């Protein structure tokens, strides 16, 4: 049924819609949330959602959908919210997105759907992310699940890695009637959604519910399998009889700065810091056994300006840090973190040391961190990334006293799968070569996507790759053509 064929359900004329202000996301007060791990954003009520949905201009050519990596039919789901058909809206989203409760929370909508919203030419864009989150949560509360009924094809697909791209592949292929088994190296399903993104931004219960939904759809999961060590890609195909394999192992190898003192106690990679807190629940020590340095009354800094950096430092604040700094070598406008996260972090009292870079870590002489020796930077000519290159200011060196420093300057490709899969092409940085259109690798029947192909990006871009891969895997399984 085409929506363009029927009359709009929106009672407001276009001119009126633009006058409705963007509905604010209710959130936990900054002073309160800085000390707990509960979610910052509280979610729209049905009334707020319906009010916000009224703002949609229902463009004939919706640029929001064009700019969504998985192609969520925004106009159509928002239309259903207007008439109060929230489950219909959820079903509409699920046609393209298997993790709406996740993307509704962590997607950088300002760079995707909302960035291209026509409203943003005059006023604030439609709160598409907030609306997506609302319907996904509503669907969850109602407990309604769609179980696919496609005829079984008899084909089996192995998905390596249970992060956003692997889950998308699994969700899409199960709906086509293929059998799907997802292999995860850690003990919990979800990849970066469970080890990386903190509870206050993405509650783990939300992730578990989405995984449960996929189980009900028929997706099988096997944890504690490090593909490349426990079993190889070739063994999955030759011995376990999988007809196709999708590699979505992410970019999980932490990068360090290679400055003196990185081995001092108190210096963490963001991956380790966040894994201890999120996956291992170290913030509930000693109820949970995984230890964490006691941050109460300590000064903590994160180095880096991305979402991971903010996740780490906001976690440190919640663990009792006295001072919590972001040390970033460029300025505000170059920061890759989402605007909303930066805003939330500032509200919570995070101290941003911009145009600053550590050159060395300092210890107490017994191997425990006491400070980061930093220099101030200024911006010079644009570099290869198009951003102005930070250049150290002479004589600006100073020591920032710290007990804990978290390095969040990016991640690289984990080589385990690549090094154990003969014939699998990689680029010079170690990422897997895959077609941008079909996600096919250099190995027949093997596909790859997400961060292990592109380098670290966002949840939604990984999901977009997963969608393309699922389509192309389905084609391969149906036609047998490579």
């Amino acid at each position, binding site marked *: 049924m085409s929506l363009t064929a029927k009359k709009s359900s929106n009672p407001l004329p276009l001119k009126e819609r633009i006058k409705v202000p963007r509905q604010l996301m209710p959130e936990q007060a900054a002073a309160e949330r800085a000390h707990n791990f509960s979610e910052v954003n509280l979610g729209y009520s049905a009334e707020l959602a319906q009010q916000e949905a009224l703002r949609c201009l229902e463009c004939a050519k919706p640029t929001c959908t064009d700019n969504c990596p998985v192609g969520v039919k925004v106009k159509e789901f928002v239309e259903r919210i207007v008439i109060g058909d929230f489950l219909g809206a959820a079903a509409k989203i699920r046609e393209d997105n298997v993790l709406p409760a996740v993307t509704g929370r962590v997607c950088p909508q300002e760079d995707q759907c909302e960035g291209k919203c026509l409203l943003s030419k005059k006023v604030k864009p439609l709160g598409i992310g907030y609306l997506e989150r609302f319907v996904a949560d509503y669907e969850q509360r109602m407990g309604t699940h769609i179980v696919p009924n496609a005829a079984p094809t008899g084909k089996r697909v192995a998905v390596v890695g249970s992060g956003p791209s692997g889950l998308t592949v699994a969700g899409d292929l199960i709906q086509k009637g293929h059998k799907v088994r997802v292999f995860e*190296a*850690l*003990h919990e399903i979800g990849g970066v959604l469970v*080890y990386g993104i903190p509870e206050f931004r993405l509650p783990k219960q939300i992730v578990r519910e989405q995984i449960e939904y996929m189980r009900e759809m028929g997706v099988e999961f096997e*944890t*504690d*399998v*490090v593909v490349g*060590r*426990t*079993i190889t890609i070739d063994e999955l195909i030759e011995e376990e009889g999988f007809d196709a394999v999708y590699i979505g192992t992410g970019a*999980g*190898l*932490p990068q*360090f700065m*290679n400055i003196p003192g*990185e*081995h*001092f*106690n*108190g210096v*963490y*990679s963001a*991956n*380790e810091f966040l*894994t*201890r807190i999120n*996956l*291992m*629940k170290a913030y509930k*020590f*000693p*109820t*949970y*056994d*995984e*230890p*964490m*340095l*006691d941050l109460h009354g300590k000064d903590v800094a994160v180095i880096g300006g991305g979402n991971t950096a903010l996740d780490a430092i906001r976690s440190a604040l919640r663990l009792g840090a006295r001072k919590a700094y972001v040390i970033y070598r460029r300025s505000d406008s170059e920061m890759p973190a989402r605007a909303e996260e930066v805003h939330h972090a500032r509200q919570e009292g995070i101290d941003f040391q911009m145009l600053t870079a550590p050159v060395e870590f300092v210890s107490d002489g*017994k*191997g425990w961190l006491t400070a980061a020796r930093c220099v101030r930077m200024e911006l010079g000519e644009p570099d290869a990334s198009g951003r102005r290159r930070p250049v150290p200011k002479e004589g600006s060196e100073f020591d920032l006293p710290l007990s804990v420093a978290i390095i969040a300057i990016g991640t690289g490709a*984990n*080589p*385990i799968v690549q090094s154990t899969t003969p014939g699998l092409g990689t680029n010079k940085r170690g990422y897997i070569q895959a077609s941008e259109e079909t996600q096919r690798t250099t190995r027949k029947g093997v596909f790859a996507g997400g961060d292990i192909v592109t380098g670290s990006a966002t949840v939604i871009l990984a999901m977009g790759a997963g969608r393309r891969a699922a389509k192309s895997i389905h084609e391969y399984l149906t036609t047998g053509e490579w």
Partner: protein
Amino acid sequence: MFKIVHAEFLAPGVKRFVIEAPRIARKQKPGQFVILRIYEEGERIPVTIENSDRERGTVNIVVQSAGKTTQLLNSLNTGDSILDVVGPLGKPSEIANYGTVVVVGGGVGTAMAYPTAAAMKRAGNRVISIVGARNKELVILEPEMRAVSDAVMITTDDGSYADKGFVTDKLRQLIENGTRIDLVVAVGPIVMMRAIAEMTRKENIHTVVSLNPIMIDGTGMCGGCRVLVGGKSEFACVDGPEFDGHKVDFAVLVQRNSMYRDAEQRSLAEFHRCKTESTARDLEDAGVAVPAGRQGEQR
């Protein structure tokens, strides 16, 4: 869940578990390890693989009681299960025909050294094994080591069994006797591995040590297990656990392994305070603070 099909004490506080883990059993090679988590609230810890049985699909691990997790683990018995066991992790030992290989196992490290000694023997090497322990009861896997070695030398710190002294004394003897040694593999406490490496450095004997830093995932994701080797940062879980002993910065390893000492002690104290009568009994079985004679008994 991974079922324990057999559990037995090898020494006071040192327990061997035979675990049903067919995928791991099929792939395990000498020098590799597993990471396990006992229960939902548990931490992930790396554990030594002593052996595996491909046909039966089982893996043998050996655990020494130290902190809360290992004490809890050693209270488990045949028929119990471990929530997560993942592996085999790390690079396997580099097995080749070197000539004469001296394999040194200190304490529970002998369990990790054993499969390497066996593989070195199969590869055609002359294998001289040196096994050291604090006392007689803590000498483990002696018959196994004898079965795969051309010669076995044993030392105890207190002289309660075999020769009084340290494994380094035996290595020095070998060197002084003019024994040609092509490779030394040392697995055990950091102080032991450091002492061995210092000794062989002077003699220019290539020496491999197996490092045991703090780990979480074991796949190269967290970087917590980074060690300084030849001035370069390496991840023990994926680049090791075996490294050139002459290049390892042991001081950094000792320092990093002390990072959570306060938390570990707190965990252990709470564990002991909270434990019930029945878990107290389990702990006795695990060899914690009870007379040595009772410790080999199983429930």
